[in-house]
């Protein structure tokens, strides 16, 4: 049971945060009603019965997807380190920092080349 205690605590914390955020939002956030807000949520864009332009999705989605995949999967290398980071010591930490720096270099490139802008 001891093993599962941290998980339980984390679950309680997570649930608490979610409930707190949802209940506090109507009181603190600005209230600007428009039609888009009442629509079904579709990643922040206006839902359309069919993709614009006869069944094909614009290439912009493809670029976003590509950027997402590459940065998303890189994080897999953090996983073994996260499992044993205390045992890997300083060496592991330095290596991980170096790894994240190289990922950040790629990120800086994407950002400066306006790969993160939608339009």
């Amino acid at each position, binding site marked *: 049971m001891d093993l599962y205690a941290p998980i339980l605590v984390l679950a309680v914390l997570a649930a608490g945060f979610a409930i707190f955020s949802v209940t506090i939002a109507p009181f603190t956030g600005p209230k600007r009603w428009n039609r888009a807000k009442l629509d079904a949520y579709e990643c922040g864009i206006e839902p359309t019965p069919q993709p614009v332009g006869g069944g094909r999705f614009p290439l912009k989605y493809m670029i976003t997807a590509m950027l997402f995949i590459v940065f998303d999967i890189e994080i897999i290398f953090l996983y073994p380190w996260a499992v044993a980071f205390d*045992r*890997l*010591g300083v060496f592991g930490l330095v290596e991980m920092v170096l790894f994240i720096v190289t990922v950040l270099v790629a990120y800086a*490139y994407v*950002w400066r*080349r306006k790969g993160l802008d939608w339009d």
Partner: protein
Amino acid sequence: MNGTIQAPTIEYALLSPMLIVFGAAIIGVLIEAFAPRYLRKSIHMPLTLLALLGAFATTILGAANGLPTSASAMGAVAVDGPALFVWGIILILAFVSVLLINDDEQFVAQAAAVPGSSDEEEAVRSGYAQTEVYPLLLFAVGGMLLFSSANDLLAMFVGLEVMSLPLYLLCGLARRRRLLSQEASVKYFLLGAFSSAFFLYGMALVYGYTGTVSLRGIGDALGAGSGQETLLLIGTAMLGVGLLFKIGAAPFQAWKPDVYQGAPTAVTALMASTVLVAAFGAVLRVFWVALGGLEWNWQPVMWGIAILTMVVGAILAITQTDIKRMLAYSSVAHAGFLLTGVIATGAAAQNAKALSAILFYLAAYGFTTVGAFAVVTMVRDAGGEAGHLSRWAGLGKRSPFLAGVFAFFLLAFAGIPLTSGFFGKYAVFAAAVSGGAVPLVVVGVVSSAIAAFFYVRVIVLMFFNDPAADGPSIAVPTVGTSAVVALAAAATVVLGVFPQPVLDLADQAASALFIR
């Protein structure tokens, strides 16, 4: 939890060539991100050249400090004699190719602009340049260094991909004939990914049999021998498919002419020379170090592949009408000649002889190839480079010097005495004969003769045919291009007339064979 994990030991000094190249590539990406557009090229160029020079210098230093007796980085990379020699060749050839790549006429102004669109006109008018070429090239070169020296299959696979992925992109960046270039890129990518999937499954099966992916561990486990031989044999075959694809051995040569023709010629020069060198480094390691104990199983198949490669390369070269495609098939044939050296194994002395022959051949062939493609970049007409052979008719009358140099490179490909090609072929065939592969050598000599026919045909076309009225013009070469041609010609002469120092160096590099 229990205890700390021992930090791995990493021989930074030995691995510094690789680290320098990758470090410079990452700095190159940062330059792309933050430097203003007009400055980028003037920063990239010296950075790239300096990185390659620095890596070469540290390679020499590593060799001068005496060879290590065990693999570096916890057995992942083996920096041994052959590795250092191969690194040296790759770095020099990459350096030379960068001089060629520095030509604005080679690369597309903006890769993202659709060919023929107003965006493209706009990009060309503004004088944009796709300067990502330089970091991509450095990543590819770094991948080659890892690929050729990897001492376990995982490092080899990562090296293979780091080498290939930038090359797929570079292939699609030609300034002229962009559709052709993009098509080459797609073909190279799909076939390359297909073949690396084979390599990977082969790796999985070999891992399944031996329980390890380190080349040494695999070699040891073969000696122990345990059950499931089928697993091992299928795995070996699939590893072979992946590696032979990169070499362009028949029947996996289909991509080579298409990619060589479509890619920007400067990139073709880089690919044709360095990828072959790196891939042979990897082939030798896998088949000699890891699968040496399985010799009796893979050798017969390799015999067939070597024969097929030599014959297919030589015969299909004859039917080509495009100069770059012809050089591609010539490269296929040369891969076949090199494979005869891979097969010629035996006792340690015999292995050292074959290895040194292959190393010398790779150096000689690499220089000649870069030089030949450099000449191709200079023969142009309105639509860009004049690839079709008929356009080369009478070139010797218009610019005898250039045609003379090209003829010299072709003679080196053919293996005429007093060129580097002769000693390369001689060394490999001599090793094959003493390794007992006489029939292979006979096929090799015959297909050399067939190929020589074609090379001579081009020479005749250049010197004894009348030039077409609207024939191509010879572009005034940039300093870089003329330096490349001069260097390559000098290397071809020196290795052909006075090869002893390089032969000795190759002998020395090969004497201790691969460390395990």
